[in-house]
């Protein structure tokens, strides 16, 4: 798994490439939290378009960051188009609280309007 972190305005963009499971979420969690707090960001955007595999550990990771963002007055957004990853996201019920977008730009445009 490769983790690529970037920031745009008050958003932390977390891009995963490869496979996200219990082993790889452990590594990712610390890095994401460090960036979020050190760079004082408000929202987290998870870009899952290049993720080929995710199990329920990934759901746990996203839900954990959702709580952190809420506590800091922020939001979590998901960018996804991979059907295998979509299936587990859908069955987890995560879409009831987190909105999914086709691109990172569509989120940024949306948050500017809002």
């Amino acid at each position: 798994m490769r983790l690529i972190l970037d920031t745009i305005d008050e958003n932390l963009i977390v891009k995963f490439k490869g496979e996200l499971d219990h082993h790889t979420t452990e590594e990712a969690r610390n890095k994401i939290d460090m960036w979020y707090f050190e760079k004082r960001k408000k929202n987290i955007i998870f870009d899952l378009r290049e993720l080929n595999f995710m199990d329920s550990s990934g759901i746990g990771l996203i839900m954990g960051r959702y709580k952190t963002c809420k506590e800091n007055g922020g939001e979590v957004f998901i960018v996804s188009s991979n059907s295998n990853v979509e299936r587990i996201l859908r069955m987890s019920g995560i879409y009831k609280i987190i909105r999914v977008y086709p691109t990172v730009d569509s989120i940024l445009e949306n948050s500017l309007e809002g």
Partner: protein
Amino acid sequence: MMKNTNYMKLEFASKSTNEAFARVVVAAFASQLDPTIEEISDIKTAVSEAVTNSIIHGYENVEGMVTIESRIVDNEIEIIIKDDGKGIDDLEKALEPFYTSKPELERSGMGFTVMETFMDKLEVVSEPGKGTKVRMIKKFKSLPNKE
């Protein structure tokens, strides 16, 4: 008519790096049934969940061995994932969606629900102090290759 059958057994240390190894091996074994991409993804996910449970819950902070046995009969695959770890105290509770005994590790509590959804059959046998055995069956829609 002769039945198409096959069998494999795999044993590995309960290290989290082996989660990826385990699901890839089972997926490769299942690939002889000519599954769809979706079916392979289902198997990989279910195996990943069961193996992760053995590593996190079964063996917690100690290292042990996880065993996977898999059997193919015609267009059906049976996968048994077993550990000799600490077992599950309250199995009924463990099977409830979103229940986790480890919220501090940000576990979603969805492992068994995922296995149940992505496979056709799920059976869990656990004995506190002895270990846990998960048995899963999936029927493939595609027909097995005829010899």
